[in-house]
């Protein structure tokens, strides 16, 4: 395989690698006839991203001949090593004129050669491991909701959240309101944590297709990685999502490049299938969105009754009335999860030590370990698929 990237595309490639590095520790490289694909997945298998550079992106694109079995060559390299080649984007832009990536399956190295100004050539020899196909199973056509917006709008939206925030909840309503809210997980005490919510109107989006009110919670850090790439590329970002628990799919595309980011979303134990016991407060639990919109000037937040209650108990003695609390989250794994994913989840929670146990992230479905030739039909969602696990994994 030989690919030659020139001019401004070198910076695009660099930015893509930065975005990929926010997801996983290993970069999967696969030259195909549709172009060069760079993929990454995180350790808990809850985030997957794929950058597919079309042959026209390159000044020269040689896929390389398939090996005797008819298999295209695939390998993975350490993300850290690959990223170090493209570490400094400003110097990439200023100094690098061409970037040549070449791979010879029989050699033991992936070679990235940067041809810079003043006759300087930097050659990086990276070791690689052969690997199986890394392919998350997802279909954006199956998602009920879609939003398209210029990256700028979304960048401006997430800027209001602290950099350290782990998860964000995106909510939409058929009335045309789109909101982002920081997600408070079960361990955070609601009475101590600031809640930030941003509401955008439909007009800020280039396209909004929403069938019913819904909300999904996904990892913000991974999303920010894609956003910074999207902002520099000036391409609109599409967000396809469905009900909580089903993956959210973020895409960017133009004739030369197609980017997919698939993030698992938190499944909601308070799904509508369960009958909820009566709750005391006006504002529903974090899962559902409050029906009051910010425009209505804070109706329903009657502090006076709280104060009256508090003042009277003060005079009497001990104990303030407890603030209306969130209802107890009672996870009913049996009721809330679909059958195939519950098996998946329990498998993964056992198998992957890195998976945070409390979070009920549905993991993505991955292509089976069967080789491509054997996996004739596209595995459907009902199949009990296994996570990709190459033989090299320690």
């Amino acid at each position, binding site marked *: 395989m030989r690919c030659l990237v020139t001019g401004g595309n070198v910076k695009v490639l660099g930015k893509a690698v930065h975005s990929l590095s926010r997801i996983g520790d290993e970069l999967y490289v696969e030259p195909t006839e549709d172009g060069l694909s760079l993929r990454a997945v995180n350790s808990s298998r809850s985030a997957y991203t794929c950058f597919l550079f079309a042959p026209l992106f390159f000044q020269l694109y040689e896929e390389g001949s398939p090996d005797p079995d008819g298999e295209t060559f695939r390998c993975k390299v350490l993300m850290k090593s690959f990223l170090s080649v493209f570490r400094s984007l400003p110097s990439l832009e200023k100094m690098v004129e061409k970037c040549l990536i070449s791979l010879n399956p029989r050699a033991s190295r992936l070679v990235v050669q940067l041809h810079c100004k003043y006759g300087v050539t930097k050659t990086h020899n990276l070791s690689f491991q052969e690997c199986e196909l890394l392919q998350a199973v997802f279909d954006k056509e199956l998602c009920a909701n879609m939003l398209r917006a210029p990256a700028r709008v979304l960048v*401006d*939206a997430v*800027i*209001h959240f*602290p950099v350290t925030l782990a998860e964000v909840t995106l909510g939409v309503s058929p009335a045309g309101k789109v909101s982002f809210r920081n997600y408070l997980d079960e361990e955070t005490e*609601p*009475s*101590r*944590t*600031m*809640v*930030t*919510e*941003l*509401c*955008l*109107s439909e*007009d*800020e989006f280039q396209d909004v297709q929403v069938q019913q009110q819904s909300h999904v919670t996904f990892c913000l850090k991974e999303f920010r990685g894609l956003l910074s790439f999207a902002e520099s590329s000036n391409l609109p970002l599409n967000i396809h999502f469905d009900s909580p628990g089903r993956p959210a799919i973020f895409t960017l595309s133009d004739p030369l490049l197609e980017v997919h980011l698939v993030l698992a979303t938190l499944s909601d134990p308070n799904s509508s299938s369960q009958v909820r016991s009566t709750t005391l*407060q006006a*504002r529903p639990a974090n899962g559902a969105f409050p029906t009051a919109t*910010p*425009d209505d000037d*804070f109706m329903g*937040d*009657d*502090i*006076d009754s*709280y*104060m009256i209650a*508090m*003042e009277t108990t*003060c005079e009497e003695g001990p104990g303030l009335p407890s*603030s*209306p*609390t*969130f209802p107890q989250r009672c996870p009913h794994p049996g009721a809330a999860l679909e059958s195939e994913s519950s098996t998946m989840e329990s498998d993964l929670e056992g198998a992957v030590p890195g998976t945070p146990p409390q979070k009920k992230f549905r993991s993505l479905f991955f292509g089976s370990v069967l080789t491509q030739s054997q996996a004739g039909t596209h595995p459907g969602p009902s199949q009990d698929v296994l996570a990709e696990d190459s033989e090299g994994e320690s």
Partner: protein
Amino acid sequence: MRFRAKIVDVACLNHFTRVINTIAKLAKTCTLRLTVDKLYFILTDKVANGGVSMWCELSQGNFFDEFQMEGVAAEHNEIYLELTPENLSRALKTAQNAKTVKIKLTNKHCPCLTVAVELPSLSSSSRIVTHDIPVGVIPRRLWNDFREPSVPDFDVSIYLPVLKTMKSVVERMKNLSNCIVLEANLNGEMNLKIETDLVSVTTHFKGLGNPPWVSEDGSQNSTQDRDPESMAEARIDIRKLLQLLAGQQVNPTKALCNIVSKRIVHFILLHEEVSLQYFIPALA
């Protein structure tokens, strides 16, 4: 009990944000006292704070276009809230180009100070960001804990040197010692000293000037009897001093300190619309 306020002017918003940022650097949690005319940020001298206390006063009219406050009861027309100023600081940080900022006391899942920021957007309707900052409502029976501290019976009162200079001196001294001795006399001289087993460093400031204090009955202050050359000193925690100096984002109009020998140092920083008093006790 009600509180709603609105800021429309960009400069006022900017200024208010800077005040909050300063408070956030000085205290992790503090008390916000609201009256009809003023806002106060108060830190009492509990052991948890290392004995420091703070009293910061702002006139609401200088910042807010609308300000409505209804206290706990008619004869106690005030509200006392416990809050984490860092949260308020964060909420205001991304609001600097807002059309309006509204702050209201609400009861969401618990009492909150809700900051609603209306931001300009390309579409016809504005973008709204709301931040719900949990606060604690302090009951009336505890209000006595938060009274304005009186000016101590000091030995020397002196204007501070340029804060930026003082800060860079103290910053370097911090690497050498945990305590710093602040001493000054009525001749406008101040020394900052640190002393360790290996080294002692002193920075001398001269020509600072001493503010004229007149006591309430009009008579001259008793410090007039004091030998102008004699230094009053206090040994204080260097980090607390640095916290105060580092938190200042704008140069105050007036900055001075009152030293009660070996007991406490009382700093007063006055800006046009904000006054800040900070007390650092002397170490044993």
